[in-house]
């Protein structure tokens, strides 16, 4: 997928929200969807099970309008967190320009976070992508929960963010941190516009 097409003057970013089941990936997209003016959002496609957990994936197209003469479109995806949807995760991850890893801040979810983070790296490696080269940010979600239930951002940073990528604490249900995260990953992705190898016509 080309990130920037100079000939048609389009910029298209595919951003994938990755993370363990019930960490809040779809909630991130719902919040964004709710904030975007009607004329700038496409139809959000969300296939969910009866228990509201993502069965397949969510897809939210965002039209950011014309920026510096470029029609700028973002495509936000989530992957199903549950371990048994491995093939779907691989499929959605293909061609991603950037990844948001949504970690569940609950202390008891630490292992799932670590396992999912490793799963992300393994899937990228399977696709022949150097995980270190893919723009990545981490969001520590559910920071609104009682202190005794969650790990602090410092603790989570120590446990998960061994690569030292940009990270954000968030309460996706109510909004804080959601756009900061999206802005963080977007800026990382857009920095790659300067790289000739990524710029297509």
């Amino acid at each position: 997928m080309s990130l920037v097409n100079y000939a048609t003057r389009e910029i298209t970013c595919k951003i994938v929200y990755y993370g363990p089941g019930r960490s809040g990936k779809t909630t991130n997209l719902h919040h964004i969807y709710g904030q975007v003016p009607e004329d700038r959002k496409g139809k959000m496609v969300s296939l969910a099970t009866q228990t509201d957990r993502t069965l397949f994936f969510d897809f939210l197209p965002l039209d950011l309008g014309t920026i510096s003469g470029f029609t700028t479109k973002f495509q936000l995806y989530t992957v199903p967190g549950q371990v048994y949807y491995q093939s779907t995760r691989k499929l959605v991850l293909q061609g991603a320009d950037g990844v948001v890893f949504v970690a569940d801040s609950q202390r008891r979810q630490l292992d799932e976070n670590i396992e999912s983070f490793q799963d992300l790296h393994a899937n990228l490696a399977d696709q022949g992508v150097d995980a270190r080269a893919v723009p990545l940010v981490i969001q520590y979600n559910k920071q609104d929960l009682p202190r005794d239930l969650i790990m602090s951002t410092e603790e989570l940073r120590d446990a998960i963010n061994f690569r030292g990528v940009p990270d954000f604490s968030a309460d996706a249900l109510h909004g804080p941190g959601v756009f900061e995260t999206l802005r963080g990953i977007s800026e990382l992705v857009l920095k790659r516009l300067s790289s000739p190898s990524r710029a297509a016509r």
Partner: protein
Amino acid sequence: MPLDSRTRFEHYEVGPANFEAVSAARAVAESPGRGASPLTLCGATGVGKTHLLQAIGNAMVQRQPALRVEFLTADQFAKQLHEAVAGSDIDEFIRHWGRVEVLLMDDIQLLAGHRETQLELLRQIEVMQSMQRPVVLASDRPPSEIAGLEPALGERLAAGKIALIGPPEYETRVAILNARCRERGAQLAPGVVEEIARIETGNVRELQGLLYRILDFQASGDEPVRAEDVLALLDDVPEARAAAGDQAPAPATATLDFQSFLTDIASAVTAHVEGWKSRVAEAAAGWQSAGYRTQALERLLDEPAPPPNYEALLRGFGATVRKLKELESEAVEADPSLSGHDVFRDPERMREAEALVQRARAAAVDLPGPSVEFSRAGFEVGKSNQLAVRAVDAVASEPGKRYNPLIIIGPPGTGKTHLLNALGHELINASGGAAVVAFVTGQQFADEFIAALRDGTVTQWRRRYRRVDALLMDDLQQVAGKERTQDEVFELFRDLLGAGKQLAITAAQSPQDMTGLDDRLRARFEGGLVVELAAPDVSMREQLYRRFLDGVPGAQLEPLARYLASRPADGVPDIIATIHRLSATADRMGVALSVEVARREFEEPEPAPARAPTPVGAAPAVRAASDVFFLDDEKIVWELRDVASRVIEELG
């Protein structure tokens, strides 16, 4: 003019009406040399252009305190220039401006009509661009709307980025008012700010003025101003009265997060999109929208790094397109149907375009006409050709009305080509030079048709012949056997006859007897007159010999002409050949050309070494009409089968 250090991006409220301008300004401030240059901010008074100019300067100075930033208005620049010129300090002026690293110029619309100042500004912009130093200008209108702007300066500004700033919309007005309240530490009752923001003023300074009036009201009274009092207090403001009649809009808090996200993304995109590729793509998109093919520019976009000469390539592409436009106008002048032809939209087909123009011009201008060598006065008339000559004269006096088509047949050398050309001149002269008369041989017509087929210009070629007033086709037999050419001849004859235009053709034999001629075309001639030029009779031969011997020095004119006329001759070429032969003999003998020389040449028992006897042409099969016929002025309808019965005159 010093920068106001308090005027920063952080104090500038961003909304849809200005976010592109803010993004471009931030890009310049954050990535000097990579952002658009020159950047021209355009917007009405009070929308924040000066604020953005200063914010750029402050942001850059904050990072590089030693940076030489020049912030001034255009009229200050003009004043500096005038003072430098008046005080003979121009060198100092140039030195000063050569040191400037960032140029921020406000109100460039003030330069309207100041040609010298504009050219100096253009020079300064070019100098700074060459050193990748940022130039940001502001104007209350787009450069294209500034009257008296030098085209070169206008083009330079257009080649950079022109960012429009619109009046702030409701949400931005709320944000601006809240920001001013915070700066002043003022507290207003809920809804007051929103009520002020409902007043649709496009000028931020006026908006702030309204806020300050409300704050003054509040300061002078005991009670805080209530939201419902706002519009009444500002009743003297027309926009406030207008707002009083409106419903209050719903607060738009829901989009604020997204809006700031959007602004940040816009900055990131502007900062990171590769400038050179943007310029190339922008140029390509511009030319594409104008209908031009831009493969050359698209190939540039494949380059991983900016080619060192890409600016020159862009200029070259523009020059090529301009050349194509010129060629198209030339072509259209020659042939309107060429307007919008593909070749004029593809800079890679320049040669084809040039060739097409050449062909179009040739086709338009060089319609072959009668040769000036052959005049009616120079055509000897005698019994053997007087019928044909009378027919030609009749046609010349009433083209298209009498014998149409006129078909002149006869063996080679009898003067068909001469007479046809003479007819052409007569037609042109009779019209006072206005008539368009085409003279073309059958072979030439066929060749042109084949060339038009090859070039895809058949339509133009056909149109070319259809604008003639008379068509004279020599040697019709040359189209025999050429089926498609005959189709063209048929269609052309039909169209011209239908339009009352005169046709005249020559042929070696009657169309009826010509092999390889399509029946349809053959039938086209049946309504016309066939006249024959026979081989010259004795009196004609004598006339001709007399005429051509007149040019031979010392020749014995009368007896020799009579003597030679008694001998057979096929036509003028034969007569001229005889005179040349006798002249050569006389020269060898060292005597003047005389009957004796001729007798010796022709009557000596020893046969002439080089010349075979002149073959006598077959007796003409057709004798078309008689003097009486013409004198009766009867319209002749040629029926081929009865032609033999029309033979009235036998030649000697």
